[in-house]
């Protein structure tokens, strides 16, 4: 029987690796991810996980080791955060370019300057064009479940791309909450051993992986990544459904809609703000306001078709971001507008709050809904991007 325990998000991320029977772990600690690599090393030390654990000297080396390990045909795992992810940057492109299905929890932490250790999404957002798939989690159960699902998506032969499983610093990483631990037997059935076909370094059967390529090849190479990314949309849905069938938890695929039947406006969220927003939606519904939540779970591939469908059913959309692309708006807001251009004329508003780990409060989310309802009523956008809770800035 599946067991229930109170654990942190970091423990859930580590336990996901255990259940996925990863074979190589190469990691370097960084606050607030450190507990992930410590838990995993304990699993290996205690004989619970049969894996090679490589305590490397940097995140750049961690990802390099995972690239090499995966290219020899094993399932590999690492985890990082913020500056560590930034140090990995160039190797992220190697992992994605070589179609190596590495899974990496990233504890979303603000990136310096200024130095801070709290939640912001500007670390992973900077990697959104790297070719990695990215999903965001709302609670610790989802963190555990998504590590397992991420391997299944990543290793699908139509996809073969690495995945970041993003969890908010401290709000999940250091928070304990009840998590159900699936039985190993069930996970083994859901996630069989990684059986690589396209890149498998064996001395007896030589193959070039990561070769030099002249301009005659790179454009086709990029198109392969584009096709795999597009294929991932369908695979994410299939894996979600198969997981729901086996474990009884249905996350809705790339996007979860909450109280969206007959909703006039919706707020698109990423990460833990989604959870608080559920309660705000309930409150507002009780007050007679027709609002709903669109929880963006998989940010890459961007669920363009789903967002277009949602936009066709509401009068206005608000988009919450925990990162800024300076001079424009939040990345999720920009992607939403881009997806809707030529398909929808409803007002789309961008909201920024909670940068650097500042708390995103119920009143902040209420304000986002109020503004979105106003825009729906007036059918126009008066302010494109609203910074909420910034001293000296009128929201």
């Amino acid at each position: 029987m599946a067991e229930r325990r109170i654990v942190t998000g970091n423990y859930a991320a580590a336990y996901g690796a255990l259940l996925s029977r990863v074979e190589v772990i190469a990691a370097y600690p960084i606050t607030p991810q450190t507990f992930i690599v410590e838990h995993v090393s304990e699993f290996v030390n205690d004989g619970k996980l049969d894996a090679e654990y490589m305590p490397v000297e940097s995140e750049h080396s961690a990802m390099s080791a995972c690239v090499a390990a995966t290219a020899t045909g094993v399932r590999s795992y690492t985890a990082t955060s913020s500056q560590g992810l930034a140090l990995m940057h160039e190797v992220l492109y190697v992992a994605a370019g070589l179609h190596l299905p590495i899974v990496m929890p990233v504890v979303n932490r603000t990136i310096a300057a200024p130095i801070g250790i709290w939640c912001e999404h500007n670390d992973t957002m900077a990697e959104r064009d790297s070719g990695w798939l990215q999903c965001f989690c709302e609670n610790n159960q989802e963190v555990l479940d998504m590590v397992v699902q991420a391997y299944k998506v990543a290793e699908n032969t139509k996809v073969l791309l690495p995945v970041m499983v993003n969890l908010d610093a401290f709000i999940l990483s250091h928070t304990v909450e009840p998590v159900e631990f699936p039985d190993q037997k069930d996970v083994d059935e859901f996630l069989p051993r990684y059986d690589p076909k396209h890149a498998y370094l064996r001395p007896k059967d030589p193959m070039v992986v990561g070769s030099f390529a002249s301009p005659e090849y790179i454009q086709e190479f990029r198109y392969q990544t584009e096709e795999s990314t597009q294929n991932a949309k369908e695979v994410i849905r299939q894996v979600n459904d198969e997981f729901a069938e086996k474990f009884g938890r249905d996350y809705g695929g790339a996007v979860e809609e909450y109280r969206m039947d007959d909703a006039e406006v919706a707020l698109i969220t990423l990460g833990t703000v989604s959870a608080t927003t559920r309660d705000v939606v309930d409150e507002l519904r009780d007050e007679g306001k027709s609002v709903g939540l669109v929880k963006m779970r998989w940010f890459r591939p961007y669920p363009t078709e789903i967002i277009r469908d949602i936009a066709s059913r509401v009068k206005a959309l608000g988009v919450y971001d925990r990162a800024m692309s300076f001079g424009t708006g939040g990345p999720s807001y920009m992607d939403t507008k881009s997806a809707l251009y030529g398909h929808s004329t409803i007002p789309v508003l961008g909201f920024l709050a909670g940068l650097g780990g500042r708390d995103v409060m119920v009143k902040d989310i209420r304000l986002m809904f109020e503004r979105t309802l106003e825009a729906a009523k007036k059918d126009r956008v008066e302010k494109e991007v609203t910074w909420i809770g910034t001293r000296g800035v009128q929201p």
Partner: protein
Amino acid sequence: MYEVRFHGRGGQGAVMAAQALADAAFVEGNYAVAFPWFGAERRGAPVLAFTRVDENKINIKTRVYNPDYIVVLDEKLMDFVNVAEGLSPDGMAILNSPLDPEEVDLGMSVKTATVDATTVALEVLGAPITNSAILGAFASATGLVSIDSVKQGILDIFGPRIGDKLAEKNARAAAAAHDRIKIGKCKAERTYPEAKKWLPTYQEMPLSLATKPTKTDSGLVGPGSSVENKTGSWRTFTPKYDEEACTNCLMCWFYCPDAAIKRLEPPKKVGFDMDYCKGCGICEEVCPADAIEMVR
């Protein structure tokens, strides 16, 4: 506007020649651009360089596909590279060759100037570096730039790279070649085999280019495919080996970038695989026993 394509080998200075020609045209009040095109290969591999000259500003940033002039620094290139490909029928070939234009076969009949730039270079520079001499030939064969401007171009471009003294020498090599050209028309007898390249669609291409040894219509690809790249054809200098002097220390075997030096069964020591020796001379450089000498 006129467009020039230079054919040379890595290390022969085709790129500097293209730049010096652009500088010469610029000195005369024109707008000019020059740029290289090379693969990832090293010294000795065939390279291209291009020069475009116009009275007005040049915007086009593509490579040159239909040059008005081709300039060939290494005559051996013509044996396997179709240097005249795309050359305008009204254009002209300027070739480093001791032959008369009529004796040269470019696979198309076109106005041709030959100059024995190697001999000129050996006389003036003491080294077979032909990029300056060939520019003097270009000036006299085409009349598009004056020899004084070419000399200035060489000083401007070569000076900062190799020093003013050597640049002066190179300018003299250009002037010497200027008066030693032969003009005529080349033959069009040979046909070059069509250059074949492995150009898979994205569906045909192995995912992420992870490639096993594969035979394609255009040859081997994947691990071990460099066996088909016979770098021996790049060779100008050949190692002369003195087995007597050789101590069998294997420094040459260790340093050879093309694995063209083989270890032999004793009492023999090392042997050279001339299919792959590109004549770079690294073995001569590293040999502590002076058992290897590079000869032309």
